[in-house]
C-alpha cells in the first residue's frame, strides 16, 4: 500500500458521501437516543461513545464541502476542519467502541442509518492511516494467505481427515457441479471443528450435493471489517472465482455473521456486478431442508435453552424466523431473550472489535448488556450461529463466572438426525 495520508483519508470520505448520508446528517437533531441503543455507551456511561458523535469526521467533510452553508462558513473562515489529530482521536470511537451492530440505525427517530455511515467512515480512516493494528494485520494475512488468521488448506485437510474417520462419510472437495459450495471461517476451523462434521452429516442425511474448494475456503472478509473496498473486493473475487470454477448454483456462508453480510449484501457491489450464483447462510439452508421434509430428527433437548441472534444475521440480513423453526425441531424448552430478532443486543465483539486486541477490555464491558439479557431469562445453555458471537459469549460468560455452555445451532441439529438403516 502506498503512503497513507490525511489527504487520502479526506478523499475517501468525499467519495463515500452519497444522498442517504447527506439526508441523514441533514436530519440529526442531537436528541441523543442513539446512545440508548449502543452497548458501548450504556455499559460505560461515557457520552463520547454516542453513536452519532463517532461519525463526526464524515459529518464535517459533508458540512464543509457538500452544503451551501458549509461553503459560506468556509469563506468566513468558520469551518471546523478534519485534522490528523482528530482522526487519531476518533480511531478508538470508530473501531474499538463500535461493532457495527446497527441497533442505532433501528432506533434513530429521524431514521439515520448510522451503521451504514460507520462503514463508510472507516474507509477514510484506513486511507489516512488510522486503523487499528490488529485489523491491519488481519487484512494483510487475509490477502497474502487467504485467511485472516493465516490458516492454510493443509490445516483444513487434516481436519477433513478427522471428520471423515469419525463420521465414516466423505467430505467432498472440488466437486464440479455440486449444488452448494460450502465456505468456512478460520475461527470455526480452529475453535469449532464440530461444525464441519455437523454439515457433513446433515448434508449426507438430506441427500444434498456439496463441495469445499481448495481454491477458496475462507468466507470472512477482513476488508469489510477494517473498511477497505479494495481488500474487500479482492476477497470477494476469490469466492466468486471458486464458485464459477466449480459451477455451483449456490454458495453457503458459515456460522459467521459478518462473512454473510459481506458475501450476501456487499459482495456484488464491491465487484460491481451481480453473481452467477445465490448466497445463503447455513441456517437458511437448514431451514429450507427442514421445510422440504429433508431433515428428519428424533428426540429433543430437554434443558432450558435460549438463543443469541447475531446482528449481521438477524437485524442486518433478515434471518430471524429460520433459527427459531430449527430450534423448535430439536428443543422443547426454548425461551427467547426479551429483546431479540431485529432488536437483539450485540455480543460486543462484531465489526472487527474481536480482531482488535487493544479493544479487549471495552469488548468485555459491552458484553455486560448481553449478560444482563441472559440473566433475565436464566437459560441452562445458549445457542447461536456465529463463531465470533460464540467465542465472545463463551469468554464473557466465563469472565463473569456464569456456567452456561454455548452451542452452535448446526451441531445441535446434527445431533438429532434420525440414523439411517
Amino acid at each position, binding site marked *: 500500500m502506498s503512503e497513507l495520508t490525511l489527504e487520502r483519508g479526506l478523499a475517501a470520505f468525499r467519495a463515500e458521501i452519497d444522498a442517504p448520508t447527506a439526508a441523514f446528517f441533514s436530519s440529526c437533531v442531537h436528541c441523543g437516543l442513539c446512545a440508548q441503543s449502543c452497548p458501548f455507551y450504556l455499559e460505560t456511561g461515557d457520552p463520547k461513545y454516542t453513536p452519532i458523535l463517532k461519525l463526526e469526521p464524515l459529518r464535517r467533510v459533508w458540512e464543509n464541502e457538500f452544503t451551501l452553508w458549509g461553503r459560506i462558513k468556509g469563506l468566513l473562515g468558520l469551518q471546523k476542519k478534519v485534522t490528523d489529530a482528530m482522526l487519531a482521536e476518533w480511531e478508538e470511537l470508530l473501531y474499538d467502541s463500535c461493532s457495527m451492530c446497527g441497533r442505532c440505525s433501528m432506533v434513530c427517530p429521524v431514521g*439515520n442509518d448510522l451503521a451504514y455511515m460507520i462503514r463508510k467512515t472507516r474507509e477514510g480512516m484506513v486511507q489516512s492511516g488510522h486503523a487499528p493494528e490488529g485489523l491491519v494485520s488481519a487484512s494483510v494475512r487475509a490477502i497474502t494467505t487467504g485467511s485472516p488468521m493465516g490458516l492454510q488448506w493443509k490445516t483444513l485437510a487434516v481436519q477433513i481427515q478427522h471428520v471423515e474417520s469419525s463420521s465414516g462419510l466423505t467430505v467432498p472437495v472440488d466437486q464440479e457441479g455440486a449444488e452448494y459450495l460450502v465456505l468456512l471461517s478460520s475461527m470455526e476451523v480452529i475453535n469449532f471443528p464440530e461444525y464441519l462434521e455437523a454439515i457433513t452429516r446433515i448434508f449426507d442425511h438430506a441427500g444434498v450435493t456439496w463441495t469445499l474448494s481448495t481454491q477458496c475456503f475462507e468466507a470472512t472478509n477482513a476488508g469489510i471489517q477494517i473498511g477497505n473496498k479494495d481488500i474487500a473486493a479482492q476477497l470477494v473475487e476469490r469466492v466468486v472465482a471458486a464458485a464459477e470454477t466449480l459451477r455451483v448454483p449456490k454458495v453457503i456462508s458459515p456460522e459467521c455473521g459478518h462473512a454473510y453480510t459481506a458475501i450476501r449484501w456487499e459482495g456484488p457491489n464491491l465487484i460491481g456486478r451481480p453473481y452467477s450464483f445465490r448466497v445463503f447462510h447455513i441456517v437458511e439452508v437448514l431451514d429450507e431442508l427442514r421445510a422440504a421434509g429433508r431433515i428428519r430428527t428424533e428426540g429433543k433437548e430437554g434443558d432450558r435453552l435460549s438463543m443469541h441472534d447475531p446482528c449481521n444475521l438477524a437485524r442486518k440480513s433478515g434471518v430471524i424466523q429460520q433459527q427459531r423453526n430449527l430450534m423448535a425441531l430439536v428443543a422443547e424448552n426454548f425461551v427467547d431473550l426479551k429483546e431479540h430478532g431485529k432488536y437483539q443486543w450485540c455480543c460486543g465483539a462484531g465489526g472487527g472489535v474481536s480482531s482488535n486486541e487493544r479493544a479487549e477490555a471495552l469488548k468485555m464491558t459491552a458484553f455486560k448488556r448481553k449478560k444482563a439479557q441472559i440473566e433475565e431469562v436464566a437459560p441452562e445453555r445458549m445457542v447461536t450461529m456465529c463463531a465470533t458471537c460464540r467465542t465472545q459469549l463463551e469468554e464473557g460468560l466465563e469472565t463473569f463466572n456464569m456456567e452456561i455452555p454455548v452451542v452452535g445451532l448446526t451441531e445441535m441439529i446434527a445431533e438429532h438426525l434420525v440414523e439411517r438403516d
Partner: protein
Amino acid sequence: MSGSMEFLLWTKGPLFNIALAIFAIGLMARLVEIFMLGRAPNYAEPRAHEWPAGLRTMLTRTVADPGTFQRAPFNVVVGWVWHLGFLTALLFFVPHVELIQGVLGFAWPALPNPVVDFATAITLLALIATLVHRLTHPVKRHISTIEDYLVWAVVFMVVLTGYLAYHRLVEPYPLALGMHILCAEILLIILPFTKLTHIFTTFIARWYNGAAFGRKGVQS
C-alpha cells in the same frame, strides 16, 4: 403606536416575502444538494422491494420501539408532546389557517381558541423541559452545539411571542404581533441551514433507512 404599526406592517409585508423566499430557495438548494449525490447501484439480490419498506419506515419511526421507550421515556414523551403541541398551534389556530388559505389558496378547519391556547401552554412547558434535559443529560450536554441552543431559542421565541400576543400580555398589540411574526420569519430563514431541515429531510432519511433494511428483509 404608529411606530409599532409600521413595524407590524413591515413584518407582514416585505420581510415576510424575503423570509419566504430565503426559506424556499434555501430548502430547494438543500434538497438538490442531497439528491444530486445519488446512490450507487445495488447488485445484491433483494429479499423485498425498497419502496413499501421505505414508505412504512417514514411513518413507523415516529413511534419509539418499546425498549427505547423504556430506556428514555422522558426524551420520547417530551419530544412527542412539544412536536404535537407546536403542530397544533401552527396548523389549527384560526389566524394561521387564514394565512395558509391566503398563501396556498386552500386550508382546513381551525380548532377552537381554548384548545390551541392549551396546546401552546403545554408546548412552552415541554420546550423548557427539553432545554433542561439538554443541559443536564450527560449525552445531550456532550453532543450539543451552539446551533442546538440557537434553534431552541428561536423555536421557543416563536411560541412564546405567539402566546404573549394572544393573551395581550405585551402592549401595544401591533408590537406584540409584529414580534411574533418576526420570530416566525427568523425561523423560516434559518430553517434550511440548520437542523430544522429535519422537518423535511427526516422523511427522506427514514425512506433510505427503511429501503436499505427492507431490501434485506427487515422492516426497520
